[in-house]
Structure formats: structure tokens, C-alpha cells
């Protein structure tokens, strides 16, 4: 009993070191996110003005704004069910490298998705988006929105 208790205590002392270390390391590697709140599909309504748009076979992507231009929004509309069950969208420079891009949010295989963007978005990657499958670690698509 005595050695068993000591083993348990030792295991937890080890976890007390390893868990915070692991959590801190994982937290340090979190991607830079655009300072915005993920809007739930049901709660978000599209802003009235379409600034830029890109059309694909399976989905449409648009950057929208309000009438004064003070609010920006990324609109993602899945026209058909995506082949990927889940994917992330990054705003980046004109490349396929997500390590320098900023995380906008996560989309699912179907539905309409809206992400609020603020003014920093304009400097975060202009109108270039990377759609990334984080399970298989591969770029699904890169999208350039056009006016």
C-alpha cells in the first residue's frame, strides 16, 4: 500500500510538471487570430454591401461591409456539401504558407458562415484566403477575392 501511494503521488507530481509544460508549449504555438468573434450561422446576418467576391464550383466567398464601411465581414456560402468535414480559413499574404497567415475561423462541410473582420484585416492579408484541412495538414484552396 505504502509504495503504491508513493507511486501514485510520484505520477501526479510528474503530471504537475508535464501538463503545464505541455499546455504552455501548445498555447505558445496557437496561430495568430484576427481579433474577432466567431459568429454563429444562425446569429449572423450578412452585411448589405459586397466589396469583393470569389465564386467556386462548391462555394462562394465574399467580403461584405456595412453602409459606412466601419464593419467588415467574411461570408462563406457552401453551395454543396464540402468533401472536407471541417476546415479552417486563414487570411494571409499571397502564398500557401499558413504559418505567417492569421486564423479567421473554422467552417464545416455545409451551411453559410459569417466571420466579423475588423480594420486590422486590411493589413492582415488583404483579400487573400487560404482554406486549410488541419486534420491532413494540407491546403485545400487559395482564394483571391476580386471587386
Amino acid at each position, binding site marked *: *500500500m*505504502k509504495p*503504491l*501511494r*508513493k*507511486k*501514485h*503521488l510520484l*505520477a*501526479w*507530481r*510528474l*503530471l*504537475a510538471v*508535464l*501538463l503545464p509544460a*505541455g*499546455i504552455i*508549449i*501548445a*498555447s*505558445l*504555438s*496557437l*496561430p495568430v*487570430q484576427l481579433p*474577432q*468573434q*466567431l459568429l*454563429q*450561422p*444562425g*446569429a449572423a446576418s450578412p452585411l448589405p454591401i459586397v466589396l469583393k467576391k470569389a465564386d467556386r464550383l462548391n462555394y462562394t466567398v465574399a467580403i461584405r461591409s456595412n453602409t459606412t464601411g466601419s464593419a467588415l465581414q467574411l461570408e462563406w456560402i457552401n453551395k454543396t456539401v464540402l*468533401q472536407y*468535414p*471541417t476546415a*479552417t480559413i486563414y487570411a494571409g499574404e499571397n502564398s500557401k504558407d499558413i*504559418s505567417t497567415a492569421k*486564423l479567421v*475561423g*473554422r467552417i*464545416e*462541410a*455545409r*451551411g*453559410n458562415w459569417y466571420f466579423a473582420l475588423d480594420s486590422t484585416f486590411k493589413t492582415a492579408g488583404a483579400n487573400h484566403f487560404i482554406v486549410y484541412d*488541419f*486534420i*491532413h*495538414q494540407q491546403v485545400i484552396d487559395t482564394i483571391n477575392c476580386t471587386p
Partner: protein
Amino acid sequence: MSASYTAVGWNRQKKYYDWLILGFCVFYLSIFVSLTAIYNPQYTFETVLIRATATLAVLLLHIILATGPLARLNRKFLPLLYNRRHLGVTMFSIALVHGGFSILQFHALGNTNPFVSLFTSNTQFNSVSQFPFQALGFFALIILFLMAITSHDFWLHNLSPKVWKTLHMFVYLAYFLIIMHVMLGVVQYETNPVFVVMLLAGTVALVSLHIITGTKEVKKDNQVFDKKKDGYTYVCSVNEITESRAKIFCIGTEQIAVYKHSGKLYAISNVCKHQGGPLGEGKILDGCITCPWHGYQYLPENGQSPPPFKEKVSTYDTRIEDSKVWLNPKPYPEGTTRPGAVI
């Protein structure tokens, strides 16, 4: 405790707790699915199921790992400890649903074997942010699987308590793998901090709980009893022991539980023959010392399980002088009858 092996020893209490566990799981999953249907109606059923089972399994694992120290701090948690194995198997089953659906959803749609795809689709082991986190979950699931299939007493007896205990201590590795699976997986792509905060709170609470109770227990184990006379050691006063309950004393290499029962004090080994449970933390039920872990029973006067069971533990002599309890730490052979000290 069984004279012969049966599938699972379901008594009334276990049935009650099993229904409670089932009810809680159904309630949790229903709430999760309903809220998702309301706030995220476009999620696919597979996605909802993967997330619901993931969060439920992590929650249950925290409850399971907290049960031991909580039961040491407060006896009201002992029923949870008594039913911990059923909760463990339930948690594994839920984790299995999560793992199974994840493999189906993320790896079964290509022309590669899903298990091959799991390990080859992402091989960035040198990257933290893009680490193949699914492999961590897979290995944790393997550990939980081994624990679940060996949870029955059949395996405890055939593997020996030492091997069985060692195997089941791998739950700590599984816990670490699961936390890292979450931190390197969903957390990397989740913009809502609530989930991370909840996970951190659970981890901190669990580690603190174990360190506090473990340190307390080890300190108790190392308590020095220096008042000795004629081979007996002074341990406490009679009033410090509650009726039908015990106090545990660690003298030399012996862990002894001194029970007060029907006007007498009896001393038996504190270590249950089943899984090494602390007999002194149990109580006397129907005239038998009952282990708090899984209900194994022993008669206080001879340390023998009541017929037809055959387990036996060592007994010891006690003496009372001026309401002071003296204990002889020399063990009698297992199952030896001792008269007990009259109070």
C-alpha cells in the same frame, strides 16, 4: 468478492449507479445535441456526435480521476469509488464512439486504409502547431481499451494485483495524451476560449487534488509512534475511534486498521486482498469490515471473509490501558482469531 466468476457482480446499489451513469450520459448528450441544433443547425450529425462524445469522455475521465482523492477527503464520495470501474468502462465506450466516428469522418473517405491514413496523412512530428494530434488520442484509446477489457476481477486474479495495478496506472499516461490531444488539436483551431478555460480548470483541480491528498497520505504513512512497551506501541486514545469505524496506523512496514465494534477493539491488516484497498477507510456492515473500494468483507475477530469466500488478512493484538490504545505490530498468520481488547 466472488466464490466463482460471474460476468459482472450487479447488486442493487450497482444497478442504481449504473442507471445514474446512463441517465447522466443520455442527459449530457441530449443537451449537447439540442444546443448544437439550436445554435449551429448546419453542423453534420457526425460532427455533433464527435464533439459531444469527446467532451463527455473528457468530463467523465476527470470525474473518475477525482474520485480517489475526493473519497479520501470525504466519505460521501465512497459510492463513486465503489462504482468507478463501471464509470471507467462507460467512459471508454464513449471515447470509442468518438474515436470511431473521427476515423470514419476524417480518414475513411479516401482510398487509403483509415488506420494507415491516421498515421500517414500528417507526419509533422517535429512541429508543435501542426503535430499529428490524432495519433495521441489513438494511443490514449488503446490504453483505455486495455484497462476496460481487464477491468473484471478475472483479470485481476490472473494477472496478479501487482501487474494489474501497474497496467491501470497507465491511465495517467492516457490522461496526459488526451490533454495534449485536445491542446494540439481542437484548441489550435478554436477561437472561443471557454473550452480551453474549462479544460485548464479541470486539469489544475485534478492535479491539485491529487498532490494535496497524496502528500497528506504519505505524511500519515510516515507518522512516528515512539511510545513503546512490551512489544506494543501507543497509537491513540479509545475515544479517537468512532464506533463501527477504524483508524489506520503505519508502524514499520505494517499498515494496520484498528476497528471499534460492539465494545471491543480489533486490529487487522489495512490492505484488502482484492486490490489493496484501505480496509481502515471502510466500515462495519452486517458485522463485517467492508472494504470501501469494492465491498470485500472480513470478520473483525479473525480477518477472514465470511463463507463461502476464502480471502484472509493478518490480525494483530490490541490492548487498552487507561483509555489508551496500544497496538502490537507483529502480525499473526492470515485468518488467525484474536479476542480483541475490551473497552
